[in-house]
């Protein structure tokens, strides 16, 4: 599938970023109200696989396995999903402002989740995952259907239809929030993007969808490259443009929906991670997609660590007090200035 030079670069980059991810995960699992040393963390994590049984204090094992790791794993999965979907959307729309929710996926998820939270009687699901997921995917396909005419889906129409639907759903969400009464706080926190109270249950919901989705997207990286030349050129180069567009859009939306359904609307991961990786590895999706996904995973694990700690330890024994907030606040608060920095310093003007 890849030229030798390209596959070599892919392997090198992916290995490096996988090591970074493992490091971030272990580092994150160490931190919290109880400090645990990295060796113990590693052992506790390996114990989970069932192949080995290291001797780890049971309290530590519980903290790692049942409290910290589900949340870290979920952060990694959601970051992976959003960054991968963001890469696809930016390439697909050939627009640097595109992010995974550009066609209303996140707003749809939020509408579904808020409906489930505010009106549990009307939307009878035990968790908000299903309504959020259905809302997300449903919105994406509605937007696609609206923008499709005569078998063709112009990208610009898709984008504008997405904007319109997002505005409409925004109104619906506001209405529901106004009438949500007791559950207002829960709904608002959900919409800010959150990873607290994560369970292995969330992981089992998001992981398969994300992995399968990104794997299929990975098989279409060459088409994504060719699509960067424009739809007509892509057609002349043997890409079935409309079918490929539908497939990419569907997969990216489903992957995004899987992430958003469990973690709420976490902004900026899907926007800035692909941009940063594009600056580093170039526009070739064969490298960009896997590296963005891995970098997104590390990014969200790291930001969520900041979000869940009340005291952030720094090197040389320094400590910074940080409020415990939903992770969406941290990604946006850190991501936006960093993005602005890139915008002024380097060329993020184009894809």
């Amino acid at each position, binding site marked *: 599938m890849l*030229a030798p030079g390209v596959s070599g670069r892919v392997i090198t980059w992916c290995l490096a970023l996988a090591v970074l991810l493992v490091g971030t995960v272990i580092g994150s699992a160490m931190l919290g109200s109880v400090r645990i040393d990295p060796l113990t963390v590693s052992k506790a994590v390996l114990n989970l696989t069932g192949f080995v049984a290291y001797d780890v204090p049971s309290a530590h094992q519980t903290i790692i396995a049942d409290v910290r790791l589900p949340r870290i794993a979920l952060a990694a999965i959601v970051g992976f999903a959003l960054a991968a979907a963001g890469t696809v959307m930016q390439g697909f729309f050939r627009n640097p402002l595109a992010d995974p929710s550009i066609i209303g996926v996140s707003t749809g998820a939020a509408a579904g989740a808020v409906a489930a939270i505010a009106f549990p009687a009307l939307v009878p699901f035990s968790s908000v995952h299903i309504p959020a997921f259905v809302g997300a995917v449903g919105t994406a396909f509605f937007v696609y259907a609206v923008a499709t005419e005569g078998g063709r889906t112009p990208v610009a129409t898709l984008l504008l239809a997405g904007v319109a639907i997002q505005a409409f759903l925004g109104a619906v969400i506001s209405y529901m929030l106004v009438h949500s009464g007791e559950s207002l706080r829960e709904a608002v926190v959900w919409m800010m993007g959150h990873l607290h109270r994560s369970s292995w249950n969330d992981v089992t919901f998001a992981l398969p969808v994300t992995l399968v989705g990104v794997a299929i997207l990975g*098989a279409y990286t060459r088409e994504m490259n060719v699509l960067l030349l424009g739809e007509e050129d892509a*057609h*002349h*180069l*043997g*890409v079935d443009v409309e079918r490929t567009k539908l497939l990419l859009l569907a997969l990216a939306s489903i992957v995004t929906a899987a992430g958003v359904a469990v973690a709420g609307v976490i902004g900026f991961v899907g926007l800035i991670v692909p941009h940063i990786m594009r600056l580093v590895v170039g526009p070739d999706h064969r490298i960009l997609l896997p590296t963005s996904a891995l970098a997104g995973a590390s990014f969200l694990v790291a930001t969520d660590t900041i979000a869940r700690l009340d005291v952030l330890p720094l090197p040389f024994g320094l400590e910074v007090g940080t409020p415990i907030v939903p992770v969406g606040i941290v990604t946006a608060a850190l991501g936006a200035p960093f993005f602005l920095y890139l915008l002024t310093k380097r060329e993020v003007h184009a894809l």
Partner: protein
Amino acid sequence: MIDPFGRHDDDDDDEGDSPRGITDASSGIEPATLDVENVSLSFGDLTVLEDVSVTIDPGEFVGLVGPNGAGKTTLLRTISGAIEPDAGSVTVDGVDVHEVPSRDSSRLVAVVPQDTTLSFSFPVRDVVEMGRHPHRSRFSPPTPDDRDAVDRALERTRTASLADRPIDEVSGGQRQRVVLARAIAQATPALLLDEPTASLDINHAIETLELVRELVEDGRTAVAAIHDLDLAARYCDRLVMVADEGVRSVGSPAEVLTSEALADAFDANATVVPNPVTGTETVTALPDAGDELASLEPGSVDSPTSNEADTGGGRDSAHRGRDGTAGASRLEGDGGRIPGDDRLEVHVFGTGTTAAGVLARLETAAENSRADLSVSVGPVTPGIVTETAARFAVEVVDTQPHAPISNDERERVERRVRDADVTVLADPVLDSGGCVLETLAAVDPETLVVTDRRPLEERDFVGPETSTRYEWYAERAVEATPETVLEGVTRALESATGRGSGAIARENRASTGSDN
């Protein structure tokens, strides 16, 4: 090739390394026939193509020419399968490109678009490799054939040295070659190019077309929309002129590029003459003739005409009197006058490109307005002037090089000059054997137009005295250039008639009448 469908079925299940793939990659390509049948297409209410049919034979390089917005690009996009026609079909090698998946059509037709959005820093090699996309399967790495095809395409287009450079950092000319390399790597029997030279300097334009020409020689069918008519005439086997929603004419460059067709399709006033270097058609567009001739409305010189008609009444004076206005109005295509009677006669003395230009300009104007104009030229030795004259069926008094003019030739020149309403000087050579000055003696200087471009010293092989004599005429003549000769002729006619017709010219005419 006999069973194109069979061939594509073979390709469908390929893993990129089927035997067919190997032959494809090693340029064992058979050129394809392109068949456009009754294609109609409209964008909303705007009809772009109306019942267009054209067949392009295997191994031909066909140029699509025509004015902006005539539908050249649309026709190309329809052939490539990018847009589906409302009616009709396009087949390449017997395969309807609109019926098969793009993967199959892209193995038949490669396209070099006018403007590729390549603002991404892909290395040049990767861009060329994209041309192999239709030949590769999703999961297998590139086969040696794929790599060979890419390497050869890079070499062929002399972009191998750029292979690792990012595409957005190479120049426009290089970028065009890279896109061409991509199309070569695609290894298709048909190649479509949309304005391949539009943004290139002349050197790169020629290089690009030379390369396309080579590809055609190697066994490809190529169709290119080309704006530059000279280049189209020079490189294409046949031209298809697209205008007014359809194919106006198809044929060799000489057949398609006529000044009449250009006037019709482009609404342009252009002359077509052979290029002295390549021998192919060269089109020179000129300012609109209508504007120049507008200065001579029949009404503006009405009085002399009516005066003559009133006072003379005789055939000669009536003829004479109407001459100026008649000639000009004939140039404007104002019908309703008796042909022959109103024939405007112009004689040209001259040599080289100046005289050739004058002839081409006069004849083009006459063709376009269907004016009754008779042009003669001489004495001239065989060369560009006689070639141009032959092209436009201009009467020539040709002489042998390095020999004095014969009596017979001299008489023919004198007769033509006597008959002429206007005589044009276009760099005539003054030598002892010639007859220019002698003949000019019989011409009313008012009816002379001078379009000289070469300095007289270079043309005068006799002496200062002849130069002085020539200058005497030149100073009294209406000044013009080969491009504006029409205007000059009109002005000369005007001044001659405005004075109630030159006495000398009238005498000439009278004696001509008696001679005949």
